């Protein structure tokens, strides 16, 4: 792993870049400061190894630096590497780590003869860098601490901006739908059916925006309540309102599905990451169980058995509905594609397809019914406290998916490859 066979020139060079690095640390923007701090780290490591390699060959005790000092820089590089990855600057960290590893590996060609002759020269140089090294290490730690604090502040800023963005997005969606509706009114002749559809959608969008806000508030309440260890009776109230809130959503969806079932199935009312997981206009019940169950430990034997059975029956029901949907797709597709294509009129085919599409509303309702039943069964199987934890886990999961959507939408553009 760590090969302390630095060439003497490399070692001296490392100390010199160190000096340069220290000056540079005082100026420049955040990124370059942090990368310079990383450089200091790596040179720190190089010098430390240099000293170890020399101390191995010379009997003089004065060059033995603390073992901690040697491992710390590498450890810090490792931490910073991961930190930078999450900040979206993977290139900086990985290249530094690779650099350090490469430099260390390349030194294996050093001959012992070189080291013996060099060690005599080094004896005079070594006494100077020892204090310098310890001072540099301390400065390094300080720089690392500062950078961690800066990173924390940055992440906090990011979180606030994210929340703001989510709110703005929702406002925009609502405004857009209302704009559509207004357009429908102005166009006069189009009011009829499309007006109803648009007003149904507009109403849903507004209600859903409110629903998400209430959901967020409920999750915070649950979290506080669980940490505060309130009584089971009080917790039950929160659990009931939490479950009831989901049922409210299914009611809303049922109403808007009658107005425009394609709207519900498309999932356009959800954020992009949520849409990725969409199954017949909502989340998969089996997915719900996968998210919940790990958060519920410890479960009794009886509970484990019941959850297991629920998982199985849920999966079977899901499969049945999925296959039913596939059959519906096949049916509609063959209906639309049917009949001669050299005929101008396709009305009969489209009209028949329309009838078949009515079934889509039933499927959306069945899917929501399955979601509702799954929630209900879990509520029955679990204790109040477990149910509260489960609701918190579920709400938090969707909350994170929404955050993921926002972050994805605001990610920096891909750097162009050379």
């Amino acid at each position, binding site marked *: 792993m760590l090969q302390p066979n630095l060439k003497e020139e490399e070692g001296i060079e490392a100390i010199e870049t160190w000096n340069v690095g220290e000056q540079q640390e005082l100026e420049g923007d955040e990124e370059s400061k942090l990368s310079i701090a990383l450089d200091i780290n790596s040179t720190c490591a190089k010098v430390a190894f240099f000293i170890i390699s020399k101390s191995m060959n010379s009997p003089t005790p004065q060059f033995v630096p603390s073992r901690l000092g040697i491992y710390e820089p590498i450890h810090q590089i490792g931490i910073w590497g991961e930190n930078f990855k999450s900040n979206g600057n993977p290139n900086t960290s990985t290249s530094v780590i690779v650099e350090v590893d490469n430099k260390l590996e390349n030194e294996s060609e050093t001959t012992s003869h070189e080291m013996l002759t060099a060690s005599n020269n080094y004896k005079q140089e070594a006494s100077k860098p020892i204090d310098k090294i310890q001072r540099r290490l301390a400065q390094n730690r300080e720089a690392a601490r500062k950078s961690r604090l800066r990173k924390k502040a940055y992440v906090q800023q990011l979180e606030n901006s994210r929340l703001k963005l989510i709110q703005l997005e929702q406002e925009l969606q609502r405004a857009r739908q209302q704009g559509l509706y207004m357009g429908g009114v102005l166009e006069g002749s189009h009011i009829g059916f499309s007006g109803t559809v648009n007003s149904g959608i507009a109403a849903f969008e507004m209600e859903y925006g409110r629903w998400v806000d209430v959901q967020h508030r409920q999750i915070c309440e649950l979290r506080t309540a669980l940490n505060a260890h309130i009584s089971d009776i009080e917790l039950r109230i929160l659990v009931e309102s939490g479950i009831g809130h989901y049922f409210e959503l299914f009611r809303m969806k049922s109403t808007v599905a009658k107005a425009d079932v394609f709207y519900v199935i498309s999932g356009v009312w959800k954020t992009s990451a949520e849409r990725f997981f969409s199954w017949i206009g909502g989340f998969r019940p089996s997915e719900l169980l996968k998210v919940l169950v790990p958060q519920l430990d410890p479960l009794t034997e009886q509970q484990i058995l*019941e959850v297991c*059975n*629920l998982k199985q*029956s*849920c999966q*079977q*029901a899901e*499969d*049945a*509905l999925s*296959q*039913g*949907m596939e*059959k*519906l797709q096949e*049916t509609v597709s063959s209906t639309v594609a049917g009949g001669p294509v050299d005929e101008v009129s396709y009305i009969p085919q489209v009209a028949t397809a329309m009838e*078949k599409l009515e*079934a889509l509303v*039933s*499927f959306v309702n*069945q899917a929501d*019914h*399955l979601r509702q*039943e*799954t929630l209900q*069964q879990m509520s029955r199987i679990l204790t109040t406290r477990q149910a509260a934890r489960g609701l918190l886990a579920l709400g938090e999961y969707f909350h994170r998916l929404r955050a993921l959507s926002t972050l994805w939408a605001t990610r920096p553009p891909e750097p162009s490859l050379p």
Partner: protein
Amino acid sequence: MDKVTRLASENGLVLFSKSSCCLCYAVKILFQEIGVTPTVYELDQDPEGREMERALMRLGCSAPVPAVFIGGKLVGSTNEVMSLHLSGGLIPLLRPYHSMC
């Protein structure tokens, strides 16, 4: 005794369906997954289909098909079957009438 009731009591698990109905297809798949074989009557292929539909509505089904009968008793439509299955009640109800692996 009307045809529906008669047919429903002839077998342990009876499903009234329509060959074009995709929700009925879904229920059939569910039974397949559980490992049971219902006796299926396709109303759109039965000469008395219309009357049977009306009879089913009279019995309390919101939609005539799919309609599931177990042991001669009406269980209900897709909603009821799904709820029953998730609560763990469907399989025990079927057991006396079907040998399941």
